[in-house]
């Protein structure tokens, strides 16, 4: 057989084979993408960031290995407080391994819980700059979690992490609207808790966030009552205090002190729990009926006026103008 004829036949075999498998491969790719088993190709920006060698390794089917290496690099950047590098590296890592919850969460934590406080206490920066950097890193932390949820919408842990960040009283001032932030947090906790894969505390966290949203007291009370009746473990002091506050707000009880004794067992325990709760006003918790309950209990326990918890000077709320001054 002549050379050109042979090559032509060979090419025909290869092309026919290709034509036979093409629809199968296209469908298989679609199925695997739908199942979240293969991810979109690497962005050009990511390829540039990781360099040619790592890019070749990643393209060679070793994306998670490159992500592991970069995680080590991010840790070095973290120990040297190179926050912009940490952010850049995690942006790349999550592009390489978008289904690994840990990387989204870790990137968010580095930004919101490490870089933000670091900026806050960085004496080299002016107060205005410190505030800007603090807010900026918290928003970056939020962005990591939101992008993580776009890639893993059914991950309850990521919902819980986002809820935790949005409802963190030390961070909430970084968000444009504090009330909206608590409401969003309660929705995130709800989604996480509804998955049925979370610890019972997540439902309580939903309540704690919701109770801090003015106008949602009835909804919060219904949840608090449900949790209270559900199981003994849900009777955490904060939940009981919130029950008193919300019942007072809704006009269901007239004597919060009496209700507190009923819930906590005796006057001393009630006073201790409400005392701790009273300090939580800096954390945006509602205080309906707490002051009057504390006053009644202090009278009953013969606590002198000068030692009254009601005279306790509260620190300014984190992130407010007053706090920055």
């Amino acid at each position, binding site marked *: 057989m002549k050379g050109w004829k042979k090559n032509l036949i*060979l090419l025909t075999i290869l092309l026919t084979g290709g034509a036979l498998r093409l629809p199968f491969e296209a469908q298989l790719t679609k199925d*695997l993408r739908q199942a979240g088993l293969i991810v979109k190709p690497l962005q050009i920006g990511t390829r540039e960031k990781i360099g040619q060698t790592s890019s070749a390794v990643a*393209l060679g089917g*070793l994306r998670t290995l490159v992500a*592991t290496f970069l*995680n080590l690099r991010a840790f070095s950047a973290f120990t040297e407080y190179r926050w912009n590098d940490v952010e850049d590296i995690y942006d790349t890592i999550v592009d390489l391994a978008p289904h690994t919850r840990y990387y989204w969460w870790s990137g968010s934590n580095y930004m919101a819980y490490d870089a933000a406080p670091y900026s806050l206490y960085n004496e080299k920066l002016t107060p205005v700059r410190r505030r800007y950097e603090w807010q900026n890193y918290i928003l970056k932390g939020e962005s990591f979690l939101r992008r993580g949820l776009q890639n893993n919408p059914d991950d309850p842990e990521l919902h819980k992490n986002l809820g935790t960040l949005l409802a963190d009283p030390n961070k909430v001032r970084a968000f444009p609207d504090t009330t909206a932030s608590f409401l969003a947090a309660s929705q995130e906790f709800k989604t996480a808790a509804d998955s049925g894969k979370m610890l019972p505390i997540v439902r309580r966290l939903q309540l704690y966030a919701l109770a801090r949203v003015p106008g949602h007291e009835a909804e919060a009370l219904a949840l608090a009552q449900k949790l209270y009746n559900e199981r003994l473990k849900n009777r955490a002091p904060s939940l009981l205090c919130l029950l008193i506050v919300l019942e007072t707000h809704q006009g269901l009880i007239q004597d919060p002190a009496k209700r507190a004794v009923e819930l906590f067992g005796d006057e001393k325990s009630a006073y201790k729990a409400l005392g701790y709760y009273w300090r939580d006003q800096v954390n945006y918790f509602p205080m309906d009926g707490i002051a009057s309950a504390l006053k009644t209990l202090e009278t009953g326990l013969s606590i002198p006026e000068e030692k009254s918890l009601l005279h306790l000077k509260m620190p300014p709320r984190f992130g407010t103008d007053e706090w920055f001054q």
Partner: protein
Amino acid sequence: MTSPAVKSTDSHVLRILVIARHAFTQLVRMKVFYFLAVFAVIAIASNFFDLPQHEVPESIGVSVLRSIKSWSLGTMTLFSVVLSVVATALLLPKDVEDRTLYTILAKPVPRFDYLAGKLLGVLLLIFVSLALMDGLMTLVLQIRTSVVLQQQLAMGQQLGWGAAEIARLKSETLAQGPTWSLQAGVLAVFIRSSIIASLALLISTFSTSTLFTTIISFLVYFIGHFQADARDAFLQSETGGQGIGARIFTLLTSLVLPDFSLFNVIDSVIEGQIFPLVMLEKLMALGLFYAVLYTVCSWFIFAKKEF
């Protein structure tokens, strides 16, 4: 009484197996198994990449399990791809150099049997190597998973978690340990190596040197990871308004090159996702298709080749 057709098939199979065994022995003598020592070091060393990063009690130690899988499967991929390309590229030239090829072909050995036997020998070597590496990885992972699980359970009990929460925690941690999906991932590594080995065999039948075969095979391997992009571009070209040149190029790329991006499922397995059996079966079918297609093409070239 056995029919001549059955007898002929049996003799083909026997011949292929003899050649495969010879190729396997030939490759083992090249001391490729020394690599396993390197793998053992990597598998054990990956245990120590437990960085003091952000960890909540529920995820204590889980990142190190992912690290073990990531390093081990990464090494397996690298080893299997390099071995499948280099070993296959070496086979024919070495047989020519040793003059073994002339001895074999002088006997009544069909050239297809010779090629299939050689390929099978390489695949057997890769399979045995991967099985050994998989065994080591599973052992290391199993030990570390038990340690992590003990730590987590102790913590859970300390925090007064209920039975349901502890069961959930256990199941989440076990999903990061040695699972059937992980074994399926290792099998996917093997299927990918089989495709690249059969492709290297095809290239070696018309190649002029081992170096040429190696370089072209690696190039095809990397380009194969973009095949899906070319296919998507071609399938959407009508709506995308591509020129005729671009359409022909993307079509040819899609038809001639294998799609290696399908095997990136391994990354998802490392991330702890479940690899459904039906998907694995489809990948196996595809791997078999490629291996048969490229071996037939190799035979087509090799059948009349003069030495």
